[in-house]
């Protein structure tokens, strides 16, 4: 199992940012998700976030909503998410689960942490779990030996940034903009300032996500961040492809372009 610590140490030694790819479990199909993630890893992604599909994804834009809806319609369950993690972790990438809080809450925090660790997962990203509500999850994660990643945003005050990074292990997720997930024309200029403000409170790696969709944008973000997170741009290509194989080819191209971008 590759840990986040190993990934970021290696990227640093290579003088580059890490590349983080996001795909929901069960999309484009249960097996197709593992194959797509493997293609991303083969093309240069260091870390894979597997999305746990949720019925009310209020932080996600139309692209991820569409993918998640298809996944749920295909009958994706938490067991499938864990199987996907297992398959992806076997490729050698550090594999996390990104999920809204309620599915973990319902499944049971301790049980989820344990089952995720058993599947080879290294941690979670929980975008709607605030520091105030995070204690049970941090305790369960620590007991299972997995990392907890939380988000900071351009609107976060320095006090909030401190509260969030104090709950993080592994890395800190800096949301580049005020808005939902989805590729944008340009990466918000607020991202660089947010990364700098975050670094004032932590030595953890800081990764930037939301709105990164091209190799050039990845290169721009890699100048100041430890990791570049890409989700919707990959999903868009899978949605637009005529079949799963074509989708994999298409996301491999983009991932390779981005992997070049993060080598500053």
């Amino acid at each position, binding site marked *: 199992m590759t840990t986040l610590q190993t990934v970021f140490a290696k990227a640093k030694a290579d003088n580059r940012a890490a590349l983080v790819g996001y795909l929901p479990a069960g999309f484009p199909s249960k097996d197709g998700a593992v194959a797509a993630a493997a293609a991303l890893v083969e093309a240069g992604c260091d870390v894979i976030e597997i999305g746990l599909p949720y019925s*009310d994804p209020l*932080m996600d834009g139309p692209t991820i909503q569409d993918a998640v809806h298809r996944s749920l319609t295909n009958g994706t369950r938490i067991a499938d998410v864990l199987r996907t993690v297992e398959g992806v972790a076997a490729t050698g990438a550090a594999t996390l689960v990104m999920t809204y809080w309620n*599915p973990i809450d*319902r499944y049971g925090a301790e049980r989820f942490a344990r089952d995720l660790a058993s599947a080879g997962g290294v941690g979670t990203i929980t*975008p*709607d779990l605030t520091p105030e509500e995070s204690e049970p999850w941090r305790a369960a994660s620590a007991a299972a030996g997995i990392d907890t990643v939380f988000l900071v945003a351009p609107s976060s005050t320095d006090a909030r940034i401190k509260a969030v990074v104090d709950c993080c292990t592994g890395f800190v997720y800096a949301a580049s903009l*005020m808005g939902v997930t989805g590729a944008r024309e340009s990466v918000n200029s607020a991202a660089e300032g947010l990364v700098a403000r975050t670094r004032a409170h932590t030595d953890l790696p800081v990764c930037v996500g939301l709105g990164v969709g091209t190799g050039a944008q990845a290169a721009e973000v890699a100048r100041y961040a430890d990791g570049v997170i890409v989700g919707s741009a990959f999903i868009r290509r899978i949605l637009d492809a005529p079949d799963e194989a074509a989708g994999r080819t298409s996301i491999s191209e983009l991932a390779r372009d981005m992997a070049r971008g993060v080598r500053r």
Partner: protein
Amino acid sequence: MANEGPIITAADLAGHGPHGDDPDARGKFGVFGGRFVPEALIPALDEVASVYEKAKTDEAFLREFDHLLRTYAGRPTTLTDVPRFSEHAGGARIILKREDLTHTGAHKINNVLGQALLTRRLGKKRVIAETGAGQHGVATATAAALLGLECVIYMGAVDCERQALNVARMKLLGARVVPVTNGSQTLKDAINEAFRDWVTNVDTTHYLFGTVAGPHPFPEIVRDFARIIGVEARRQMLELTGRLPDAICAAVGGGSNAIGAFHAFIEDEGVQLHGYEAAGRGLESGEHALTLTSGSIGVLHGSRTYVLQDDEGQTIESHSISAGLDYPGVGPEHAWLKDSGRATYHGITDDQAMSAFSLLARTEGIIPAIESSHALAGALELGRELGPEATILVNLSGRGDKDMGTAMKYFNL
């Protein structure tokens, strides 16, 4: 009931008592409530909370709110005895609190006027809102027109269809209505979409939340602005009957009209509090909105509360003939009132609600909203149970004009 003195005071906005305390610093009513939202929204929620904290004891704010409630919303609303309707409730005396007589036709106007004034204090020029039946959307569009605010309303595409009249009203009032076509295309999806707008435009925009659900401080703010219903009713009941009612009945979707009616009575232990959820086509059918009576504890729309969810935490779509009750979550304070035993919650089917809807129209010449008809149907049952000596106050939260399309179909009119 005469227009003497202010109808709302700082004390009316802040109810304190053994059960009526404000939520704690984290916005918790016991284990319920809190904030489960993207970090990006935390500063905005903090700002709303702090502006409201100042406003609720600020004389100028209270004066302005009082003035609008009185001269614009048409408060205080009257009580109406309904003896012919009561004959069907085993002779118990049923009295209606007439929120249907407010401007825009439902209790929603109370919260909306309060929050529209807050929007001005927040220095924001744009409001967004979700709406189910359209009543909160209409009220928000109304207040936005009154105060010169830009207004965007998110409404499930299914609801747009069953409440077409309200869509037209909102447009006429200058609001942009955005039909939401994802998910179940009803209230819960409209809320998701409104949150997405808010996180994107939070610098300029206030999310004028329409019910006592959502992240802290919305459950507290919306409750306080709706609280006037019970504050007035308590005073009026004493004037009219010389005593407090034996029970209060209110419909519960998200729960704003019910909290508004209940809250001033929470410390009156002799007054039973009954909330009626939509049982739709019946519990067994799976097509219902019985969140408190059949759901489980989870997190939805930023708050820990009772939720209709499956074994893995996926929200289950609700059903009700009434768009305003068609919601798989409920306000956290109701969850707390249920678990503490202070309030009791029941289900009323579509058919029971429609029967009460038609009964009130025929016996009293009042056409209620289908939402409120759930409380009326509940009162008919409760009256038979409590007996002819009992007095029951029903919050008639809205009028039925908006429901004519549904009624025409249901009754083949």
